[in-house]
């Protein structure tokens, strides 16, 4: 996330100076070089925002990308269909990951409750027998 903020800080004056094409090229290059799929999508969205919306694009992109990264619905009208698809895939995979974690946690909790339940049952039975 800090990389993302750094890039924005560096590029906003550049775009403000009407060097939109140069900024778009710079961000596209960052996107291609990014080792992480999330970074790639963020940079691709920024590049397309600048290309489509000019110097206002970065502000709009920043707000919408932050919504996206927080798992909220984002307005990505400026994005190409393939980049928008990548962004939705990111959200869908994140939801899948959360569900898998929740499923694992429930399974673990079930085991713990099962064990605790069995202990209580044994204690209750042995208690009843000792009376």
């Amino acid at each position, binding site marked *: 996330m800090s990389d993302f903020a750094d890039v924005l800080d560096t590029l906003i004056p550049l775009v403000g100076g009407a060097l939109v094409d140069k900024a778009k090229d710079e961000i596209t290059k960052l996107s291609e070089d990014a080792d992480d799929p999330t970074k790639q999508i963020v940079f691709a969205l920024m590049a397309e925002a600048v290309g489509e919306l000019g110097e206002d694009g970065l502000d709009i992109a920043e707000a919408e990308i932050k919504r996206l990264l927080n*798992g*909220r619905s984002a307005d990505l009208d400026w994005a*190409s*269909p*393939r980049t928008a*698809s*990548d962004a*939705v*895939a990111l959200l*869908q*995979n994140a*939801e*899948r990951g959360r*569900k898998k974690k929740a499923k694992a946690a429930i399974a673990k909790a079930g085991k713990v409750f099962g064990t605790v339940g069995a202990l209580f049952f044994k204690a209750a039975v042995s208690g009843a027998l000792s009376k």
Partner: protein
Amino acid sequence: MRNLVLLLLITTTGCGTKVILRDTNVYKAELDQYHRWATAQSGYLRDFIAEHCECDGDTFADAECKDAADYVLTIEARADWHHQMSLWNAGLLPDDKEPAKNPPSIAPLTCPLPAGLTDGE
């Protein structure tokens, strides 16, 4: 009982994103319909592009043709994966039907359009 409902409300609301409960059959019918609309439109658009768009080298001469072609390639490559992921995340697919981790890659945009799913391939 009232305490149990209160506990459930506290633990399920107020933090994180909103979770929506939907009728399973209606939700699935909607998803299927949107999927059919997208893929059918993509097929018609592909035919329209083939008939009306011109190439300038290996790119489309017209910007609208280029944008339309990008939609066709994206829908052909990705619509099914997104549809399956929507069903999977809603718990509407069996365990052995989990979609691949990465969505399929989208063919590069070239003119004329590369052959696609709607060409019967």
